[in-house]
């Protein structure tokens, strides 16, 4: 399910609570999470693509 929560002053953070990429945004594409100005009124859809764990190396 898509979750939207207020972020700082004037922004909305959007993400999937099921660990999937969301689709939409600017530039349009797949996002792990997206923070947008409220004024842009961007809408996202949840995909069925799971977010992979990012690699890092020590």
């Amino acid at each position, binding site marked *: 399910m898509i979750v939207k929560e207020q972020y700082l002053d004037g922004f909305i953070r959007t993400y999937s609570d099921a660990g999937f990429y969301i689709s939409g945004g600017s530039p349009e594409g797949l*996002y792990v999470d997206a923070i947008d*100005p409220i004024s842009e009124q961007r809408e996202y859809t949840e995909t069925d693509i799971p977010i992979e764990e990012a*690699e890092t*190396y*020590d």
Partner: protein
Amino acid sequence: MPLKNNKVVLSDGTTLMDITDTTATEVDVSTGKYFYKADGSLVEGTYNVDWTISNCAYLFYQGHRAVEAYTEIMARVKNPTSLYNIFGTWYSGSGNLQPLPGAPTNIVIPHEWDLSYINDATGFFGVFNNNYTVETVDFTNFSLVIPNSNISSMFYNCRNLRKVLIGNENTSYQNVSNSQYLFYYCETLDEIVINGLDVLSLTASSALSSLKSTCKIYVPDTLVYTYRTASNWSTRASYIFPLSEYGG
């Protein structure tokens, strides 16, 4: 001594260390003086092998080669097929990690490197991952030809990084599909200069998290508004400026 498929081959047909195996530490690339065979035995003598290196994944990983022979090895790179973690993990000490003594602090990706040869979607992953040493990076020849490229963690945890220049007026970022942790924990960054034809998509808010609030971001004049309202860039809107105002 001929070079075949990036392997150094002796006249008797013996294949020495595959020099595209950049994780190997045995090859003395600083002098070309000696090579080790794959079985570990030393081939003594002086060889003037005009070798080049294309697969640069991990080439300077942990920094030892950078300390010993940075300039010479960089000059050997031709048509790189991968820069995966090439400058990764440069630090000294344990616990309170410090810059690696003797390693370069200013890195310019040479414009002679033709990045259209990058043949893997992860070819730009973690290029400077965990590099505590580098302070400035000039990556103005950056280009992305592989669709769905993963450039995540490119500058992950660069604890002394102050300035990054990335892209030029011909660079397109449309092939970026993953830019998580792009500048994650780059707490000392003062300036990010991004040139290009379009907006570099930040596919996760982690890309800029931990950046100090005063870090200035310069983008092409025609894209300033687009960046200021772009997803995951917009929280930095008041510090996004036109390139024409960049002082160098």
